[in-house]
């Protein structure tokens, strides 16, 4: 499973998400609550050892459209992001990752999930009482084994 698919699946499998909706879109969010969109924002090499094994990081932004009628809703929304942050930190269980580089399929494993900047991102209808979008930046670190020698 590619890193994007894996992170999407981990989020779908999170009870916090599956209790609200069983769906997470890629690069897309609907305007009505409740909706989740996972936006990959790039991959970077963190380090490489002398055998050619790589530690890489893929960055995501998770957008969540929630309702926001009052403070109670907004507190629940922010608490959701906080709980999701805790969940992601504990969701890493050496899941396998598949990487294709120059037509070579390499194998690796997820090593760390972390997140930051969980906050209100924008209004949908120009008012805070309508549907609002929250964001959570997610960082997925994974280890890729070098092939052969």
């Amino acid at each position, binding site marked *: 499973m590619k890193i994007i698919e894996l992170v999407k699946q981990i989020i779908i499998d999170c009870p916090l998400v599956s209790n609200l909706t069983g769906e997470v879109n890629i690069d897309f969010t609907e305007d009505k609550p409740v909706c989740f969109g996972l936006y990959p924002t790039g991959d970077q090499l963190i*380090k*490489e*050892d*002398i055998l050619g094994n790589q530690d890489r990081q893929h960055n995501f932004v998770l957008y969540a459209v929630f309702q926001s009628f009052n403070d109670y809703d907004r507190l629940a929304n922010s608490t959701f992001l906080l709980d999701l942050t805790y969940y992601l930190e504990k969701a890493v269980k050496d899941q396998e990752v598949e990487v294709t580089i120059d037509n070579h399929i390499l194998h690796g494993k997820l090593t760390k999930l972390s997140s930051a900047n969980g906050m209100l991102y924008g209004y949908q209808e120009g008012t805070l009482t309508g549907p609002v979008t929250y964001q959570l930046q997610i960082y997925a670190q994974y280890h890729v084994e070098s092939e052969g020698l």
Partner: protein
Amino acid sequence: MAETITGKIKRKYMAHFIDAAAPGATTPNYVRLGDDLEEFNVEMNANVETKRNILGNSMTTIDGYEPQASVEPYYAVVGDPLHARLQKIADERLTLDDLKTTVVEVHLWEEDGAGKFVAYKEDAIIEVVSYGGDTTGYQIPFNLHHVGNRVKGVFDVATRTFTQNTTSGTGK
């Protein structure tokens, strides 16, 4: 190896193996070093002596080396024979001959027969520097002191066996 290596040699083609078998074992158990190591250097530590004569000329001689390498970080992995060896050294505070091992440097760009490569084997002493580490994992960094008896041969990558050349060798 199917790949023909030309030009600038990638770092991974200079391979370092260490015998992780317990002292006195009949057959070595070579383990490759390099996981999690962004850099690994064998410091030559040449013994350099420089003299200046009355004419103002200087003469420099090198009469030996004390090679040493540092393996840091080394993350302990359950089932890794090198971890077992290092853990025993730390647990039982082993000294002297119990620290002896051999290291093999393999030139993966110099194939000498199918799956065999030019290699140099040398006796070494393991020095466990510390054990513990941070939350990234249990670490046992160690130093390798090369102590001589360096011989040339070939290394079979598949079976991880070293065969000394019968006609040549390089002593320290």
